[in-house]
């Protein structure tokens, strides 16, 4: 009897389970990988490999998963469902079994390095309600002094989802063709729109934005702002939140600008590509409307003198000679050079800086962008003239004017 127990219960059933639920699925996954993977897999760099080791040893996989499940709720939040080939270089896998934080499969391209370093050093400086541990030992005393481990870890995080992104639409089409998908629903969740780069937080340019003229709830707007925006933009929108010193370009000083509703909608819905301002599509549109209303209420009243004609002329002359290439002939941020820039030049038709802010930007430049200080090229008089000139481009939309200061 004991031999029977040992051999059948102990050995045979073990072998059966390994064959049925280990070896056989692995075979199927290998076939799927061979059929659907892009031709030239991009391996991780040495730094990214080291970063992966840091991720593994710190237990990151026990709060963050790396598998987007074949479920609408997952796909809505995290992007297309994970295909078999996407983890084929992951040894050991980091698929994860618990989500305290969000899934990270499609993290590539969502955050700037500045954001990642600050978030690792002091998560609550960036996300006040986060429960993520701080990883200060990976740094040399400050978020902008990462040690090798931190650089490697951020490099690794930046690689998550990259392979699928690089495969592009051709890769998606090839995967579709190669898929022996028994279940159309699964193919839909993994391969149909939205594309792998469409995760809710990822900044993008030019997507159509919803109008935010819905019901704005003041209290809700304040609550959302404190939770999600104040850490960068500061409690009154003056760009002085705890995260601000560590981000280049720094968070915008919202109080020093007048914004159209369309401009705010674009910033919230698309993020600001090239900066740490993410897209906030994980919030319902009504919430974004409340936020937009709150942001507009931050604008500081300024008394202004009228712009004299001579200054207008000087400003126009300076603008056409120096600013047009980026900011466009009508200040729409659509100059010839604009397409080359990682961070879009300011569109003055949609946002109007205060005089002080405008002069400061021309004089000092905008740190972290291609807007350089102009003091070496322009006289003080020219700087002030140009700075005041660009404020003429602003178009207040009729509906947006309502309720704005």
């Amino acid at each position, binding site marked *: 009897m004991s031999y029977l127990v040992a051999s059948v*219960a102990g050995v045979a059933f073990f072998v059966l389970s390994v064959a049925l639920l280990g070896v056989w*699925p692995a075979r199927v996954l290998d076939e799927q990988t061979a059929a659907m993977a892009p031709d030239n897999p991009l391996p991780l760099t040495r730094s990214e490999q080291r970063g992966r080791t840091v991720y593994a040893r710190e237990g990151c996989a026990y709060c963050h998963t790396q598998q987007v499940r*074949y479920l609408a709720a997952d796909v809505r939040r995290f992007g297309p469902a994970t295909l078999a080939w996407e983890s084929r270089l992951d040894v050991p896998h980091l698929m994860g079994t*618990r989500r305290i934080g969000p899934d990270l499969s499609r993290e590539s391209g969502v955050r700037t390095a500045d954001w990642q370093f600050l978030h690792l050093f002091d998560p609550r400086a960036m996300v006040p309600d986060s429960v993520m541990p701080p990883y200060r030992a990976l740094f040399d005393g400050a978020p902008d002094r990462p040690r090798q481990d931190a650089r490697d870890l951020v490099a690794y995080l930046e690689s998550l989802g990259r392979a699928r992104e690089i495969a592009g639409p051709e890769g998606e089409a090839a995967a579709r063709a190669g898929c022996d998908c028994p279940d159309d629903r699964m193919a839909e969740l993994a391969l149909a729109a939205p594309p792998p780069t469409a995760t809710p937080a990822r900044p993008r340019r030019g997507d159509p934005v919803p109008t935010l003229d819905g019901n704005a709830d003041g209290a809700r707007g304040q609550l959302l702002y404190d939770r999600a925006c104040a850490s960068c933009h500061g409690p009154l929108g003056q760009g002085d939140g705890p995260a601000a010193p560590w981000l280049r370009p720094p968070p915008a000083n919202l109080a020093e600008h007048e914004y159209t509703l369309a401009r705010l909608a674009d910033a919230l819905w698309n993020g600001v590509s090239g900066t740490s301002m993410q897209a906030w599509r994980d919030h319902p549109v009504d919430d974004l409307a409340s936020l937009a209303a709150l942001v507009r209420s931050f604008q500081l009243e300024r008394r202004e003198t009228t712009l004299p004609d001579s200054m207008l002329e000087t400003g126009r002359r300076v603008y056409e000679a120096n600013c047009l290439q980026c900011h466009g002939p009508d200040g729409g941020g659509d100059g010839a050079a604009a397409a080359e820039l990682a961070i879009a030049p300011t569109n003055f038709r949609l946002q109007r800086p205060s005089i002080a802010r405008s002069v400061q930007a021309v004089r000092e430049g905008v740190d972290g962008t291609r807007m350089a200080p102009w003091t070496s090229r322009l006289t003080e008089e020219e700087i002030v003239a140009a700075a005041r000139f660009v404020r003429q481009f602003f178009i207040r939309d009729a509906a947006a004017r309502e309720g704005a200061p």
Partner: protein
Amino acid sequence: MTHVETRLVYAHGLAALATLLVAVSFGIVVSLQLLLPDLGADVPWLSWGRLRYAHTQGIMLGWLGNAFLAFLYHAVPILTGRRVTSVRLGQWLFGLWNLAAVVPGWILVLAGVSQPLEWAEFPPAVDLVIVVALVLAAVQFLPPFFARGLEYLYVSSWYVIGALVFTLLAYPMGNLVPEVVPGAQGAAFSGLWIHDAVGLFVTPLALAILYFVIPASTGRPIYSHFLSMLGFWLLFFVYPLNGTHHYVFSVIPMEAQATAIAASTVLGIDVVIVVANLLLSLRGAGIIPREPGLRFVAASTVFYLLVSVQGSVQAQMAVNQAVHFSDWVIGHSHLAMLGFATFAAAGGLVHAWQRIPWARYNARAIDWAFWLLLVGVVMMVSALTVAGLVEARLWQSDAPWLDSVRAARPLWVHRSLSAVPIVAGFLTLLAGLTTGPRGGGLTALGLGKEAGDPPEVAARIAVPAGQAS
């Protein structure tokens, strides 16, 4: 007559309680760090992830591993009428397990040398030591079952043999295969191990305890030999096929997932059969037995039913899609390990301790320990289960991710508060087994010094019904 190596029972029992207190401390710090995330911020070896690894491995290998080994030293000689293989081997096994595996494993994991694999976090170097130790355990405990002349095997014996052989194969599979097989392919093997660790290592040894202690304490045979046999074979057939239920809705082929879900459902039915058999065997002893070892065991039986039915339910796709990745799963794992397994292990330890004539035994403390632990586990599991449901609902909605973290916070406070009765319970259990009069257990059972030599005592009072002597 049978001879129980009481010194090895004792050594493993103390090691079990010592490692338990350490592992529980890790768990408490981890739970507090979710409420005060800057706790231990500048100290790498106090970081959440590393402590979490040390907690789960400490509980499985330190507390349960030692407690089961202690019980095996008590039960195998009684079940077989023969001694275990060798005392010297036992000393090596003890040293290897605790001083070459558990303690170095903790040190390495906290130093950042680990594997990010569920239930397999100790690094490969320690895994190799454990495999050697499992071989030694097989050499120590299996030969008595295989020696000539043993025609009749009691159900506990099957579970012991099955557990030792299966785990010897499953442990290296779970710990080493995902290091060479990448991605989702490797995850299939991880899923198998996650379930094998709980289902083919912990569960059979816990069931061996339940099936042993109940008739030994009540003095009556188990309700049905047939149901024991049915339960055993069904468990060993179906449990290993559950593994992929840890990866439902992943890219692992749907047929494998469906097999695992079906197996999980059948498993629930199997547990109902097993628990019915055990509860019917308890009839007459009351819903809360007076005898403490039996009381732990009775509670363990009920926990087993709850956690297994819960498991069958959460494997179903409709439920899984909502609660997977949430605190519900943490509640489930604690209902299994802190409820079912810990109460079985405690029951086995108490039972064995009572029958060591020179061991201290404090009946009152053990009484307290039971109630404190019961309150603690109910508090903890209920908080986590509710947290899981709250998180699940928020994740299905349009709310931003952090809303689920914010909503779980008050429930995490409740969960951390459960540490108070749990730690008190474990400390009281330790007190119960290290303070009080020597031989207090025998006195509690109504047997005094006149009962005779230790080996004879052990044999006489713990003969399971139906066992040929």
